[in-house]
């Protein structure tokens, strides 16, 4: 019990509290801080999950079945087509999510490894759900249509499919003069005359004006290309749909 003979400290403290008109900070301030931590964590989770959904989308259309067309080994092809941008992006947001989880009221009770592991698992689960709802495709289209350096940094498939001298060409069909020839505009807005005399359609590809496609075949001259295979272009559609169509082809 309070010993009045030895209560100098308590009395001095209470006097200081009263003189300075101190009062406990309101509960809502702490709730607000806690809520902010959770909210920031949730945002990081959503962004990380969105990155996962785009990665799944890109992986789905990674052309595993035709990697030999690229004249690279499977390992080279795999390394070349890894979505590095999204991996770095995901790592950043997993780190941010882990940071906020660690700074929740009881976050300190869990080890770093557990928290990082949980952040990755949560991002993958939510990312898979987002992918299943079509979020990955939508995001890729939006980012492709608006982001600079998309073809070099974000989706390196575009770059891989823009090597006509190696037999790979992609772009937007802008004119179809006959069943055996059409005009395609590549990522640099260059128009190509594509000969499709001996070509085959794969993966449900259709040659329709203002639709992006990919071709394998051979560069036969200046801006002319003989197509062997015509393939649909899924990941990166947004990027090609933003191309300015040259007047000469319209």
């Amino acid at each position, binding site marked *: 019990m309070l*010993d009045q003979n030895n209560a100098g400290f308590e009395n001095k403290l209470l006097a*200081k509290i009263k003189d300075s008109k101190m009062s406990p900070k309101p509960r809502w301030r702490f709730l607000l801080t806690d809520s902010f931590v959770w909210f920031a964590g949730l945002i990081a989770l959503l962004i990380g999950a969105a990155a996962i959904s785009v990665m799944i989308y890109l992986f789905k259309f990674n052309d595993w079945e035709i990697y030999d067309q690229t004249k690279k080994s499977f390992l080279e092809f795999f390394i070349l087509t890894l979505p590095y941008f999204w991996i770095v992006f995901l790592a950043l947001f997993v780190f941010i999510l882990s940071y906020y989880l660690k700074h929740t009221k009881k976050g300190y009770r869990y080890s770093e490894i557990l928290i990082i592991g949980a952040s990755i698992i949560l991002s993958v689960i939510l990312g898979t759900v987002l992918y299943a709802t079509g979020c990955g495709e939508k995001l890729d289209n939006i980012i492709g249509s608006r982001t600079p350096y998309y073809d070099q940094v974000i989706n390196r498939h575009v770059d891989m499919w823009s090597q006509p001298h190696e037999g790979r060409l992609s772009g937007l069909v802008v004119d179809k003069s006959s069943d055996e020839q059409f005009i395609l505009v590549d990522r640099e807005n260059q128009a190509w005359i594509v000969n499709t005399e001996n070509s085959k359609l794969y993966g449900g590809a259709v040659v329709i004006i203002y639709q992006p496609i990919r071709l394998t075949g051979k560069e036969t001259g200046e801006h002319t290309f003989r197509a062997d295979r015509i393939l649909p272009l899924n990941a990166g559609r947004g990027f090609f749909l933003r191309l300015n169509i040259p007047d000469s082809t319209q």
Partner: protein
Amino acid sequence: MNILDYSIDDIEKLTDAELVKLSLKNQDSFVYLVDRYKGKLSSYIKRLTNANNEDAEDILQEVFIKVYLNLNDFDKNLKFSSWIYRITHNQVISGHRKLKARPEGYAVNLDDQLANSLASEIDIKGQVDHNILQEQINLVLNKLEPKYRDVLVLKFLEEQSYQEISDILKKPLGTVASLMNKAKREFKTEFEKQNLKI
């Protein structure tokens, strides 16, 4: 209920959490919490720092002001003692630079039971004369890295459980256990070094 509605016996029976609730309604109730913890925390501050009585009292006052201002942040799922020790620990760390300049040496004497408990746990009992055991323990603790000293002080001198130490230092239980093992080893090594010097 107001604190004035309680008898002295009733107040003694109140839990810390109940006193927190009462302190939020009535400032005067806070003195009972202060009374419960000032002795323990004063010793803890002196064990962690080289503070003299005056400095320790200043730190203690800052601690209790912080506790009072943050009463609404007290999580009832946590032991109040863990929460107040955490605030004290953080306050000591934030004022560490100021205190570091002072001569080394702990101002608090260990009682025999605590000294023996630590000596027996670390298996150093019998290696040194009982009369100089306390002095040696203080000396060795002072030589240890703060992260090792913190866990040893909390476990053996403040008699906190591993879970409480985890809540005070805001570290996972596994990390506390691992720190404790390393701290015991470091303590023993340093203790033997010091012993050789005698």
